[in-house]
């Protein structure tokens, strides 16, 4: 309600009587001493707080309603200023007003969105002081319109000097006659006859003496006789001229700006302000007399005059327009009259004459609207005067009824301007009278609509637009006071469409603020309206207001990814900032536009060019280069690859591709076991031991002099090329603080400066240059080398774009998880699900200089065959700053890697054995493992598969003299430790720059992509507390192609097998594209050996074509020392020649197969890991592991040595395929079968027992005679078979408890036997239940007749027959037994024939 009262008060200030002041020049001169005109002098006293004390002044309304005025207000204007200024002049003046108001807020902060929302929530006016000033001036300049009489003067003050000579009435008449009257009054539009003329004699106390005042009183008394009571004497300028008395009225607030042509109630030029200020010559008496003068004028003259005039006008209107007769007349005749195009009495075409006066120009813009204005003297004009007078007096009822009547008439006459004016006044009357808001709002809206139609009908007529804007301002203010912000927004938006840019911007801005006051606030629409306002402000060159509007909405669109909108905002703000001379701000806005992949090439080039231009301008202003967070090129700051060598060094690119678990397993294997424990012996205290894999939690480290690399991904999202130079890491370094003091901090790369050289910076960065093609994404490896111990901080990347713009990007990597010291990690991007804290920099602890082992491998082809044995040379070089020692190498046990040694390497094992030299460690291991025998291939025996490597130490030139003599000796055998083979070179010591080359045998067991993985551990010569040892990781990718696929079977009990032996069946399939020549087949076992005089086909020099298969057969006989558990190796001319490396690899393969389940998880095949995790508990795994190791020890290894049938001159490629732990698939040496009738019918009534004849067939499949014992009727679980070699072989009768039957010699015996039978038995063997055959010839078949007695009908299953055998020839003695396969028979009860 408070806001509504403010609106009402504002309307009352504008709806008060206007008083015209016509002063003699001498009077004006007297007033000008105070810096004011007479009208301005009287203006502050126009506000009368109390009329006639507290009683008030009664006013008689036409409707005789009691009305009493308690306060009043008069507006005093100089007569010549009472006109509307020209629209152009008014707009120019208003533009200046707005610019001045905008400049006052230029330095203030732009409120953000939240502040605006808070302001709107408190129902406060938006923080737009420029709008209030503009609105006030705009409404002032729209006064004195021709279609409304609200601002027409109701009285005129005629002022003559007190010493005016001559006849005063004539002088007053001459003053009226010769004065510059308002243009509209001169044109007759403004009423002049009904204006009250108030005569005043002004005594100038500064120039006239008291006698003049006395004479003037006398003359005034005489004048009152002729002119009536409207004559007064006013005395001014009785002060000292030093200044106004205290408590003087606020003239300054009531003085408005002057237009060049004047108008709007103000003169063209303001009177000069005296030194004493406004009202300098006025005294307190003067102020009192002025107030008394205005009071007297109001109460005694003006109010009665207005009352009289109101009643007179009401009488005229009632006579001419009101009543039934007049309404009918109007209804019937008005159409005809309006058809006369305004020439009739109701409306007249005042045309340009309505605008009137020279210089005012108000009529020039009336145009088509002139036909709609009110004709002087017409009934409509009288109605308008009546309604306006009623409004001025506060008689809102009369005003409203008259205005409604006027609106109906003017609407019928299509005088829309007058109609709109009447509606506007009707709205004001509704607001002032407290009518329902809808009435006022509808009136104002209709007025807005009708005013807008004026310009739509005639676009050149801008007058309607201005009045429409006035109506919109009034109704929006009223609606906002009512809290109807949506309606206010609509009114303002409707008004802005036809307005010029400046006012449209203001209207849009207010419309936008209305949206913020809605509930919920429409922030997005607010932003849009404000952007439109900013555009209009920008087009009207109001950059300050435009910039504020755009700045306020940036927060609404930020982060919403509306690319075009953000681009428009940045473009506009950047251009405005650049035009305003703020190049630095322009650069930042233009920089935001650079990332625009959705734009075409032209736009991208344009944006880049304008950014570069602005940047150069800004750098010229600042005098130093600007370092900006450029969006081009895009830098992957959230995911960078960090490569640093702390405790661990990566010696090849492939080493970084290997899974970390493999390295962890190798590091675990490299951990020295013999190291004395510093803590206790329990596992709880083991954590305190320095372990290789442990480091400071989360700490990254590197060594002095060793480069730290960062892989940064750069992306060019645009369609044009980007030249990036001076690309480098932005680093700082904290030197190792001395004891008790903080270290210095040095920085580089952030100032866009040069490459840092020298040790004073603590590090050295290397710069790169890269040209990014359109859409290209590259990974750049940037390096920094620390030069002294301390802490190195890598903050980000810095670069120079296109030779002009210095860009920088800060890494936003999450805090790395606790990692091992020296580990290489690709720091992952942060995810939304787990917002990890981000670190501003990557910090590395810089360690003192350390030895560094570089490992390289030569001779390993990228592609080889599965099972192929390759000999390559591994080069070790110490590139660090200290001598290293205690070299230890670890490789996965199943990886097929063997480290050779000096002179012992490269020679075939057979040659070494024949020459009596020291066998290689691998060969010795193989011997102890029990290689049984090998069969040589033709022509290849004893030849080396590949040329022996240069197994010598090739030290550098400086170090060649100190050739380590220990390397010429054999290496100690590798030890298996935690699934890895560990090779130790304990006495090797490499100085700085020294290198050594070692032969390495490699064999990829399986086809597919794999890595040759090796980890080296070494220690510095001088052990440091910070880093006691380092490891070097080397890996090389190898692709193994499928070669020879092998499957084998050991079958015993076959025909022709030697006693105790078995038959080896090996099936090979060539999966390669070329032919493979099988060089030999070997079987390594502790139980068997290959038969020397095998009669089976020989596999020597068997060529297997591509995609062909072959089967190899070999007889295996029992090794002589097998019973005693001794493993023997019998070489021979026919054994395949396996070099020391091959033999070592074979042994490694066997060991890997044996310990595969015990290997660490990362050193096992994936399928095996999964099986273990899913199905077996650790205890079960342990049991299975022991069982499997036992079985593997008993099993045989089948090895096929092959070589590629290469061309002449090409090196021979050899390899072998092995199957480990093959077990025997045995069959019984005696074949047994029980035969008989399948179905028998027997009459059990006739004979209680049914005798069935059966035949047992025996066949000896072995090559030696066998003693066989057949035992009948023994149920399962009644004890094992009795070996036939025991003395119990002799025939004897089985005891009855065994279920056996007596010898079926007679029928009485049968009966006795039947009586003794257990009742559960269905059948009883008859005759001998134990038959011994002393000698069954090899391959011979023996038939044994048997007989069984069946006691009842049914199905019979004879499964209780066992056979035992014993081969008693040359050792080995073979014994065994088996159950005879069951014989099934059906016994039917025969029906006896009827007698």
């Amino acid at each position: 309600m408070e806001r509504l009262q403010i609106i009402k008060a504002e309307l009352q200030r504008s709806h008060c009587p206007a008083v015209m002041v016509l002063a003699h020049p001498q009077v004006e001169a007297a007033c000008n001493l105070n810096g004011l005109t007479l009208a301005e002098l009287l203006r502050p006293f126009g506000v009368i707080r109390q009329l006639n004390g507290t009683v008030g002044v009664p006013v008689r309304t036409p409707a005789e309603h009691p009305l009493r005025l308690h306060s009043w207000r008069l507006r005093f204007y100089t007569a010549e200023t009472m006109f509307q200024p020209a629209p152009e002049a008014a707009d120019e003046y208003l533009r200046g007003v707005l610019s001045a108001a905008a400049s006052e807020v230029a330095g203030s902060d732009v409120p953000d969105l939240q502040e605006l929302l808070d302001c709107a929530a408190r129902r406060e006016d938006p923080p737009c002081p420029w709008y209030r000033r503009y609105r006030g001036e705009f409404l002032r300049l729209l006064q004195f319109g021709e279609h409304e009489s609200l601002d027409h003067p109701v009285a005129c003050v005629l002022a003559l000097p007190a010493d005016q000579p001559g006849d005063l009435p004539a002088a007053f008449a001459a003053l009226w006659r010769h004065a510059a009257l308002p243009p509209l009054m001169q044109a007759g539009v403004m009423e002049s006859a009904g204006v009250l003329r108030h005569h005043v004699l002004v005594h100038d106390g500064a120039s006239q003496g008291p006698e003049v005042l006395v004479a003037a009183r006398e003359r005034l008394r005489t004048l009152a006789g002729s002119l009536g009571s409207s004559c007064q004497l006013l005395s001014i300028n009785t002060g000292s001229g030093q200044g106004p008395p205290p408590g003087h009225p606020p003239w300054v607030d009531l003085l408005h700006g002057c237009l060049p042509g004047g108008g709007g109630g103000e003169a063209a030029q303001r009177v000069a302000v005296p030194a004493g200020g406004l009202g300098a010559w006025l005294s307190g008496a003067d102020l009192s007399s002025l107030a008394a003068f205005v009071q007297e004028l109001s109460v005694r003259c003006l109010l009665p005059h207005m009352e009289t005039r109101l009643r007179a006008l009401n009488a005229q209107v009632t006579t001419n327009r009101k009543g039934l007769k007049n309404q009918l007349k109007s209804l019937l005749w008005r159409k005809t009259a309006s058809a006369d195009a305004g020439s009739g009495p109701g409306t007249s075409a005042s045309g340009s004459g309505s605008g009137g006066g020279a210089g005012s120009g108000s009529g020039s813009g009336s145009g088509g609207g002139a036909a709609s204005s009110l004709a002087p003297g017409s009934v409509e004009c009288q109605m308008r005067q009546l309604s306006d007078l009623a409004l001025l007096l506060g008689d809102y009822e009369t005003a409203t009824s008259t205005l409604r009547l006027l609106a109906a008439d003017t609407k019928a006459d299509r005088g829309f301007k007058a109609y709109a004016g009447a509606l506007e006044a009707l709205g004001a009357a509704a607001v002032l009278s407290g009518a329902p808001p809808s009435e006022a709002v509808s009136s104002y809206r209709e007025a807005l609509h009708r005013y807008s139609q004026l310009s739509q009908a005639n676009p050149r007529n801008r007058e309607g637009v201005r009045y429409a804007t006035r109506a919109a301002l009034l109704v929006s203010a009223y609606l906002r006071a009512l809290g109807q912000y949506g309606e206010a927004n609509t009114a303002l938006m409707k008004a802005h469409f036809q307005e010029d840019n400046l006012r449209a911007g203001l209207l849009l801005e207010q419309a936008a603020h209305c949206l913020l006051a809605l509930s919920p606030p429409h922030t997005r629409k607010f932003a849009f309206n404000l952007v439109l306002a900013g555009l209009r402000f920008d087009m009207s060159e109001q950059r300050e207001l435009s910039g504020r509007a755009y700045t306020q909405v940036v927060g609404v669109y930020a982060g919403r990814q509306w690319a075009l909108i953000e681009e428009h905002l940045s473009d506009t703000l950047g251009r405005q900032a650049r035009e305003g001379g703020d190049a630095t701000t322009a650069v930042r806005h233009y920089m935001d536009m650079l990332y625009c992949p959705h734009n075409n090439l032209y736009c991208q080039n344009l944006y880049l060019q304008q950014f570069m231009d602005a940047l150069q301008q800004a750098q010229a202003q600042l005098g130093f280069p600007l370092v900006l967070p450029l969006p081009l090129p895009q830098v992957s700051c959230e995911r960078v690859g960090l490569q640093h060598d702390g405790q661990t060094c990566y010696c090849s690119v492939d080493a970084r591709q290997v899974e970390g678990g493999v390295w962890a397993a190798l590091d675990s294997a490299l951990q020295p076991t013999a190291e004395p424990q510093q803590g206790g012996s329990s596992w709880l205290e083991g954590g305190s031991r320095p372990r290789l894999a442990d480091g400071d939690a989360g700490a990254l480290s590197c060594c002095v002099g060793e480069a730290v690399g960062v892989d940064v991904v750069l992306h060019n999202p645009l369609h044009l090329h980007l030249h990036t130079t001076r690309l480098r890491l932005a680093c700082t370094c904290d030197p190792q603080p001395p004891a008790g003091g903080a270290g210095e901090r040095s920085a580089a790369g952030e100032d866009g400066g040069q490459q840092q050289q020298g040790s004073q910076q603590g590090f050295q960065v290397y710069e790169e240059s890269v040209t990014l093609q359109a859409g290209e994404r590259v990974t750049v490896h940037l390096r920094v080398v620390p030069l002294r111990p301390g802490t190195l901080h890598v903050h980000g990347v810095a670069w120079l774009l296109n030779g002009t713009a210095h860009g920088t990007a800060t890494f936003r990597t999450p805090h790395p998880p606790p990692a091992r010291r020296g580990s290489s990690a690709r720091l992952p991007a942060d995810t939304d699900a787990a917002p990890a804290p981000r670190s501003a920099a990557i910090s590395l602890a810089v360690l003192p200089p350390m030895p560094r082992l570089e490992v390289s491998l030569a001779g390993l082809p990228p592609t080889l065959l599965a099972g192929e044995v390759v000999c390559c040379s591994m080069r070790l070089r110490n590139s660090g700053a200290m001598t290293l020692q205690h070299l230890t190498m670890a490789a996965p046990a199943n990886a097929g890697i063997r480290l050779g040694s000096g002179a012992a390497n490269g020679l075939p094992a057979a040659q070494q054995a024949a020459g009596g030299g020291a066998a290689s460690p691998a060969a010795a291991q193989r011997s102890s493992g029990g290689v049984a025998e090998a069969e040589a291939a033709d022509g290849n025996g004893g030849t080396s598969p590949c040329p022996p490597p240069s197994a010598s130490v090739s030290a550098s030139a400086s170090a060649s003299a100190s050739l380590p003599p220990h390397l010429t000796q054999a290496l100690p055998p590798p030890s298996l430790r935690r699934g890895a083979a560990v090779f130790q070179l304990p006495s090797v010591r490499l100085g700085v720059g020294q290198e050594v080359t070692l032969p390495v045998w490699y064999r990829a067991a399986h086809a597919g992509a794999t890595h040759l993985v090796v980890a080296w551990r070494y220690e510095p010569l001088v052990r440091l507390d910070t880093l006691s040892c380092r490891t070097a990781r080397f890996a090389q990718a190898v692709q193994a192609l499928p070669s020879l696929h092998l499957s084998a079977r050991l079958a015993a009990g076959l025909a022709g097998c030697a006693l105790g032996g078995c038959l080896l069946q090996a099936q090979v399939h060539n999966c390669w594209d070329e032919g493979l020549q099988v060089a030999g087949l070997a079987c390594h076992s502790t139980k068997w050996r290959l038969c020397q005089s095998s009669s089976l086909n020989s596999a020597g020099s068997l060529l297997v074509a591509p995609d062909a298969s072959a089967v190899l057969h070999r007889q295996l006989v029992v090794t002589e020392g097998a019973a005693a558990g001794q493993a023997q190796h019998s070489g021979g001319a026919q054994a395949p020649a396996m070099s020391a490396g091959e033999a070592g690899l074979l042994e490694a393969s066997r060991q890997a197969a044996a310990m595969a389940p015990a290997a660490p998880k990362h050193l096992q095949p994936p399928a095996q890991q999964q099986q273990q995790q899913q199905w077996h508990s650790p205890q079960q795994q342990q049991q299975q592991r022991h069982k499997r190791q036992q079985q593997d020890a008993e099993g045989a290894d089948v090895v096929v040595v092959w070589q590629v049938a290469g061309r002449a001159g090409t090196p021979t490629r050899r390899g072998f395929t092995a199957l480990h732990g093959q077990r025997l698939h045995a069959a019984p040496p005696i074949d047994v079968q029980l035969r008989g009738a399948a179905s028998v019918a027997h009459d059990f009534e006739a004979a209680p027992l049914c005798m069935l004849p059966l035949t047992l067939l025996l066949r000896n499949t072995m090559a030696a005679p066998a003693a066989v014992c057949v035992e009948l009727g023994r149920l399962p679980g009644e004890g094992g078979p009795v070996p036939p070699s025991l003395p119990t072989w002799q025939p004897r009768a089985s005891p009855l408890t065994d279920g056996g039957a007596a010898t079926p010699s007679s029928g009485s015996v049968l009966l006795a036997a039947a009586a003794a039978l257990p009742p559960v038995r269905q059948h009883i063997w008859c005759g001998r239940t134990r038959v011994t055959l002393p000698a069954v010839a090899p391959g011979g078949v023996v038939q044994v007749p048997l007989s069984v007695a069946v006691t009842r009908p049914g199905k019979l299953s004879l499964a209780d027959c066992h056979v035992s055998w014993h081969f008693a020839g040359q050792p080995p003695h073979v014994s065994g037994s088996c159950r005879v396969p069951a014989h099934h028979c059906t016994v039917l009860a025969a029906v006896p024939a009827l007698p």
Partner: protein
Amino acid sequence: MVIVGANDVPLYEADLSAKSSTDAGGREERPQYLYHFVLHAALDAVEEAEWHSNAMHLGVVDRFNNLQVSAFTTAAHVKFLLLHDGRSDDLVKSFFRDVYEMYLRVMLNPFHTSTSKITAPLFHQKVRQLARNYFR
């Protein structure tokens, strides 16, 4: 046409006008800015219309000069906005329904999240085809 997800982030934008394929070059894309502003400003009206209707098709929710914004909202408050010059509401409704079906198919992709931008060329092609079928 724009598909707007959570936090007013546009998931898909397409210019379905006939002149969209011609690349005028330069700064001839000024109306595009206005279209995006109008569409973004219409989100307030869409949210207001969501409270007044149970249907997914909200009809014309906002106007600016001779431009109209029709809206369609999903259960997840993903908004489909179409800026047009006064097309039939039935056509717009059918168009939205078909686009919604295609949108559901995109959402069935297990690798697509509710905040991912729709960049599938096939989706764009089908939307353009639908626009041609309905509005030309």
